[in-house]
């Protein structure tokens, strides 16, 4: 018994063997060079513009703003990309694709820009990871098959586990030390000891305000807030994926009136084939809606 349903799926696609072979070539060309690198480059730029410094420096990784901002920014692209991959292909790896792509881009930057060019040690610029969060998000979408449930449960988990999944990478930097009679965390000291123009703490948004009244559980309050905001942001970006991923046509009626027709599933349908002449001599007028079996 086969592990996957691949044979059944290929059969149902009604593609001849050369079509199947061609589709795999398209997979190879489209997925790695176009989809992956495209997401890597654009998501990296997007993330660095909105949350870059929180990820660049160890002395920006605080318990309030880092925890709040990073998931909110990092859930945006996955929202749109998950829509695209899920709606058109039922592929549940949109979030993981985005986040691993982002990290590949980040590590290229760390090695070549921060370490090789600017000479900072790599632990000073170590990026946060959200791969576990992305895996959870993708798994929730696959298991629930509902973007709404994914937004509620998956995105909530996506943001809530951000701090714990990074604590094992950055926990050491929260240890205290004393320098010149001042208590500092190791991260503070590293920010001080490695000379850069962005050193003083006022460059980042410092921890202030009423979160201190929550018994010192700043991290979890921030994570909760981030989770709720991320749900909304994810929904907006899912809808952006819908907006940009929707194909539509202007169909000219018998009396010359133009009507806009949306069809997110147009590619791969018999209607698409008829419209593009792939079923020649079918005798059907252009634009006729057909069922998958080819019956009008």
């Amino acid at each position, binding site marked *: 018994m086969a592990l996957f349903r691949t044979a059944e799926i290929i059969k*149902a696609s009604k593609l001849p063997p050369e079509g199947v072979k061609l589709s795999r070539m398209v*997979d190879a060309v489209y*997925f790695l060079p176009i989809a992956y690198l495209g997401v890597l480059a654009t998501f990296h730029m997007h993330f660095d513009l909105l949350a870059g410094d929180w990820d660049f420096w160890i002395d920006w990784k605080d318990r309030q703003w880092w925890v709040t901002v990073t998931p909110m920014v990092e859930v945006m692209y996955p929202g749109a990309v998950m829509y695209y991959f899920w709606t058109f292909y039922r592929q549940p790896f949109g979030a993981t694709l985005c986040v691993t792509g982002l990290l590949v881009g980040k590590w290229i930057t760390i090695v070549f820009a921060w370490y090789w060019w600017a000479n900072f040690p790599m632990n000073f610029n170590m990026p946060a990871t959200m791969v576990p969060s992305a895996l959870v998000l993708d798994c929730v979408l696959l298991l629930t098959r509902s973007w709404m449930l994914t937004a509620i449960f998956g995105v909530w988990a996506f943001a809530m586990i951000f701090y714990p999944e990074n604590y094992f990478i950055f926990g050491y930097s929260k*240890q*205290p030390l004393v320098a010149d009679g001042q208590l500092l965390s190791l991260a*503070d000291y*590293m920010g001080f000891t490695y000379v850069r123009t962005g050193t003083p703490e006022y460059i980042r948004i410092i921890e202030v305000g009423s979160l201190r009244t929550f018994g010192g559980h700043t991290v979890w309050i921030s994570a909760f807030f981030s989770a709720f905001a991320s749900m909304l942001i994810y929904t907006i970006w899912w809808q952006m994926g819908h907006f940009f991923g929707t194909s539509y046509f202007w169909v000219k009626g018998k009396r010359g009136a133009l009507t806009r027709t949306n069809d997110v599933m147009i590619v791969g349908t018999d209607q698409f084939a008829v419209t593009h002449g792939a079923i020649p001599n079918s005798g059907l007028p252009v634009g006729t809606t057909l*069922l998958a079996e080819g019956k009008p």
Partner: protein
Amino acid sequence: MNAKKLFKLCVIGSLGMATLGLTLVFNTSPASAHGERSQEPFLRMRTAQWYDTRWNPQKTAVNDEAMLSGKMHIAEDWPRAVVKPNRTFINVGSPSSVFTRISAKVNGTPMFTSGPMEIGGDYEYIIKLRGRLPGHHHIHPMLAVNGAGPIAGPGGWMDITGDYKNFTNPVKLLVGGTIDTETAGLGVGYFWHILWMTIGLSWIGWFAIRPMFLIRARVLAQEGGDALLNDPVDRVVAYAVLGGTLALVAIGFFYTDSQYPYTVPLQAGEAKIKATHLKSDLTVKVLAADYDVPGRALRMTLLVTNGGEGAVRIGEFTTAGIRFLNKVGVANNQDPNYPAEIMATDGLHMEDESPINAGETREIKLDSRDALWEVQRLMDLVHDPEQRFGGLLMAWDEAGNRHINSIAGPIIPVFTRASGV
């Protein structure tokens, strides 16, 4: 593609190649400064007025300590266009972290975080450094002002010898033990990043080994396609990945928490620094000042009153970290290690160089003249939105005591020799 299009592309390509080729023609020597000359003169002359800057020693080995020290006066004539120094930080301007900073004290107070500075206040800073990256480096003291950006002080050269591979930066932790900031947490960071990337890419790979796009799109468009694509084995794997991920995150978090039971959040306090003030027996009033553009000179007419008990002689005018001295200044205050490129030892001239006696009030015509005005791009003063100058006037009494006055006033540019009469 027709011949016309092909020709167009060839022309565009040739232009691109020619542009790239031009870059080889120009001399591409390494940059040796940080663009401090590009900061506007009013910013350099009338904000932080740097003096007594010292780079000591000028040659350091990797791991050895050095010191950047000096004083700055926060000008009374702080420009309207610059945010007031309510939140400031004494920093080091260097090409990356060629030194690590061990400590920074301003008027004896440690400055790990920022703090307010007083307009008219005087501050002495001592920054201890440790050699990290070998090379010949241009180092500046720098005042970071929230809302205004960094204001660079004078730059001096410091050499670091040795090998970076030997550099360590050990610090003692409060809970015991020593940690090297160069390598702390690096192994753990690599481990978790590699682990999660491997799991993440494996998750994508799980779906990439099967037809990914066109075939699935065709199937999905059919009735019942969604159910067919819902492969049971994917659901099993998803449950395993979901459970495994959450378990691994929980284990990692609680393990790390047990490893570091005592932690502190990022600190965001404020350095409370008490200002001192300049001391001088002189009272100086700027009566007039003009900037001789072709002559590259700042000409001042000052009304100086000596309120002390002994005669004093003017010896130095310093602005934007650039020093203009006469014989008195050279005799009393010439630091042989001060960078020659920002010091004019014969740059200060007076019509009457006799001492200003106790109780005397005299109108003095002071002329600081040197090519440095142009080289250091202070001539751009004429393009500033506010035509005022500022600087520190230094004088010495017979006992060798220094008297410093911060002076400022409006300035009129003189564009041609004819109009400057």
